[in-house]
Structure formats: C-alpha cells, structure tokens
C-alpha cells in the first residue's frame, strides 16, 4: 500500500469511530469480540487507474453498526460480488448508492481517493 494512503485511512477510521460511536465499536468496549469481515481488494479493469480497497472498518460506523444498511441490497453478504463499474455508480447503483458525489465522493474528482495509483497494492 502506498505510504501516503495508510495514515490517511487510519486517521479517517479513528475519527469516524470516535465521533459516531457506533454500536459495534461500543460493544467492543463491553467485551464483545468483534469479527469484522476482511478488507476487500477489487482488481482494476481496463483503463482503471488502480485497484480499489474496500475497508469495512471505515464504512461500518457510518451505518451505525447496522449491516442491513448495505446488505443484502445492494451488496451481497454471503458470496461477495464484484463487477463494480463507474457506469453503475453514476446510475446510483452499487457503490454509487452513497458514492454519488453528494453523500460521499463519487466517480469524478480525485481518483486516488478510491484507486491505488502506482506503488504496490
């Protein structure tokens, strides 16, 4: 992972976690062991600037610890699917459900926000 991205993402996670105090992380304080799903790397397609890393840790607090916000619609929970495209996102589907440029950053703007350009993944 690029040296610049890691601390940025780490800061983002901590900030979100503390400000939103999600049920999941609060439960961690009560001694309930958490097992968040592993981070996912989506290989890039033709013309993509780089693979996309999806972290549950940065998204779960935004959903107040409620998996049902994203699962199973629009994202499957048992057998993860891929095939995420800008086209679908711009139509408000897949990641574009939130990453539409308004609720969260969309397909326009800084590619490095989602894609790991250059360096190793």
């Amino acid at each position, binding site marked *: 992972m690029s040296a610049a991205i890691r601390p940025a993402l780490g800061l983002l996670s901590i900030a979100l976690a503390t400000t939103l105090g999600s*049920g999941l992380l609060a439960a961690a304080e009560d001694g309930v062991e958490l097992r*968040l799903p592993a981070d996912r790397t989506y290989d890039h397609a033709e013309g993509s600037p780089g693979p996309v890393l999806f972290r549950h840790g940065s998204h779960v607090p935004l959903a107040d610890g409620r998996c049902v916000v994203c699962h199973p619609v629009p994202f499957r929970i048992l057998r993860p699917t891929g095939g995420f495209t800008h086209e679908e996102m711009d139509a408000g589907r897949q990641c574009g459900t939130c990453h539409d440029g308004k609720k969260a950053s969309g397909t326009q703007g800084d590619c490095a926000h989602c894609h790991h350009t250059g360096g190793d993944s």
Partner: protein
Amino acid sequence: MSVGLLYDSTRCVGCGACSAACKEVNDLPPPIEESTTAYTWTVVQNVGGANVRRLCFHCLDPTCVSVCPVGALQKTAEGPVVYDASRCIGCRYCIMACPFGVPKYQWDQPVPVVGKCILCAGRVARGLPTACASVCPTGATLFGEREALVGEARLRIARAPDAYVDHVYGLTEAGGTSVLMLSGVPFESLGLRTNVPKQPLPLLTWRILSEIPSFVSVWGAFLFGIHWITKRRDDVRAFEAAQREQRR
C-alpha cells in the same frame, strides 16, 4: 447427531447481518421487515434496550410437523424443520398451532405458501453452518451440535451468573428445541413466550388419534349389536303377529 444454534442476546449488537444473510441465501425479496413474515425469516429486534432474534426454534418434536395434514413440514435427521411448499394446501394449522408463533403466511398472494426459517437445511446437509451463523460478527449466533451448544450455554451462565438469566431458552420448552437462547434480561421482556408447555405438544393429540383403530372396532361392534338386538325384537314381534293371524 443433530445441529442447532445458540443465540446469546448479551453478545448481540443488533447489526442485522443475520437477516441480510438469510434474505440472500433463501432468495427472499427485500426489504427486511420489523418482525418475521413470510418474506423475512429472521429479524433482530431491540426490545427495551436488549436485542433478540426472532426465528424458528426447530423443535425436537415439532408441533407444526405433527399438525400438518399433508406432511408439508418435516423434521430432518440433521435437525432443521423444513417446509415443502409443493405439498402445502394452505390450511394454516401450523400457524395456528405453533407455540412460538413462528410460521407466517403470504396473505397477499393468490397462490400463497408458508414462510419460516429452515435452518439452512441445504447448507447444513453439505456440512456448512447456517448463513446467519456464518456472518455474525460477534459470534452471538453460534452454529454447532446441539449437545455442544447446550454445554456452552450452561458454561457461560456458570462463568458469569450475574450477566445471564439462569435459564437456557429452548432446553425444555415444547420438549426441547434445536435453537437455544441466552439472555441477560427476563425472556418475557424480550417478547419470548414463557407459557410454552414442557411436554411436546404433539402428544396431546396423538394420545387420542392412536386409539382410533380400537375405538372404531369397539364402537362398530356396539352399534351392530344394538341393531341386531332391536331388529331381532322386531322380527320376533312380526313372527308372533303372523302366528296370531294364522290361528284366527
């Protein structure tokens, strides 16, 4: 060996991953409703600050299985109580009889069927855990052999007696169920029924139905006997009347 689930309410954070996985693995349509319906086979509810999952308890001697006139509900050897929609005639006796209020109906469909958790019978038969157990991020829902789960439940209560109500829900209810629950608050405050008899309910009707062959033979013999006696009385009267006629 039969499998089951252990749901520990004290470890549940109400994330709903179980509901999501259930919808996906059973191809059920969105949305995830507030309580179970024919289209939402498990939900997690927050009742007075505590979380509780609603799902089928997969009784060891299921009431629904015993009441279904066409055997659409069956208890499999592995543990799940499954439903064969192709047999169902829609009498809804299962819905009326279930002591836990589990089965639900497709009231909005012209061709309706019943819907309830089937403990991922297909996955279980292939040696996989249930979908809900496989996605639970806290391990509040555990999948395993029922015996082992009972042991684990008792262990947890013993280790932290102040954290739990001293009862494993499903150990004795309706004669025992494959889905067990632990709670930190009284079970009725979670909306779980605590008036479920300890004895399996099917015994209440089997007691009578099993005697039908004897009853039919005895009652039939009795009725024929009455007919025979009264008919004989008529025949005798007719014979005597005929005799009197002859003498005249």
